[in-house]
């Protein structure tokens, strides 16, 4: 049975949440979810999506549905699935917005939510944290906002999660994998040129 996640590494919004979910599985179970990186904006020309999860005969190409599917399959790894649902929606719809004027309204909402909380739901990293962290990691306008601690509670929460290998580790994994793909394809081209 095939169990594989494909991630488009050049997508305008790389699905870091799905990648993080994959590393929860690969760190926390005997089972491993194979991750394939694609050096493009979409996983394939036919599928206009930045990700694709193949689990047996099931194929899913929406981020929230991938999280939902994996959370159902590994309930001991993915905490607070149902309480996380509104936050997953919020993450994919609101936290991916690049217009800062619009985004700032929702950042204030999240910052205020995190003023007395260390995690979005409960007392450990849950599905809600995976989705929100992933959305902010992919959002190009967030780098300086997080660094300058404009929203101090978000910055504290974000940095805590990033220090967790299952979150922070995926960034390096993506960079390294894309570099390897590029190197391999360059070597391939060279070989062919040589042959000709």
């Amino acid at each position, binding site marked *: 049975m095939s169990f594989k996640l494909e991630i488009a590494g050049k997508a305008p919004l790389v699905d870091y949440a799905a990648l993080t979910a994959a590393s929860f599985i690969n760190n926390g179970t005997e089972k491993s979810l194979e991750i394939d990186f694609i050096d493009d904006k979409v996983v394939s020309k036919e599928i206009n999506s930045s990700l694709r999860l193949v689990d047996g005969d099931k194929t899913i190409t929406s981020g929230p549905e991938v999280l939902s599917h994996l959370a159902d399959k590994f309930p001991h790894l993915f905490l607070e699935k149902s309480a996380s649902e509104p936050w997953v929606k919020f993450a994919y719809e609101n936290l991916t917005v690049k217009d800062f004027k619009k985004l700032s309204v929702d950042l204030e909402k999240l910052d205020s939510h995190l003023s007395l909380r260390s995690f979005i739901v409960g007392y450990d990293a849950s599905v809600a944290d995976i989705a929100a962290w992933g959305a902010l990691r992919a959002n190009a306008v967030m780098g300086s906002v997080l660094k300058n601690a404009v929203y101090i509670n978000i910055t*504290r*929460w974000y940095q805590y999660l990033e220090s*967790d290998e299952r979150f922070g580790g995926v960034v390096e994994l993506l960079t390294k994998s894309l570099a390897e793909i590029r190197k391999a394809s360059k070597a391939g081209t060279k070989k062919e040129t040589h042959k000709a």
Partner: protein
Amino acid sequence: MSLEAKLARLNVAETLSTEELALADQWTTLSGRIEQHLDELNDSLRSKTYIVGVKPSKADSAVFDKVFPLASKWTSVDDVAKYRHILRWVDLVQNKVGLDNKLKIDLSMELPREIKE
């Protein structure tokens, strides 16, 4: 089970960096007269999930032991707003160790937003 015994169940990090160790030592020392350092503690926990940062350490237990009796008196909106980061951390630690008599904290309390200086 005593508070001390419960706190011993905090899953502390095996290794701390030099900087983290220094912070842990500093706060363990200050925990003896924590009443005088509450503002400083609140400031420090603004940007840190645990006392030394991202890792739970013995300093969390030491400080929690002293702060917990004080924190139970912070019920007004003003006090919660003033010590919000300490309360956030108290709530994290008390849940991580599964305290029996948890301090009730109204997580949905509307607090004035802190303005970055």
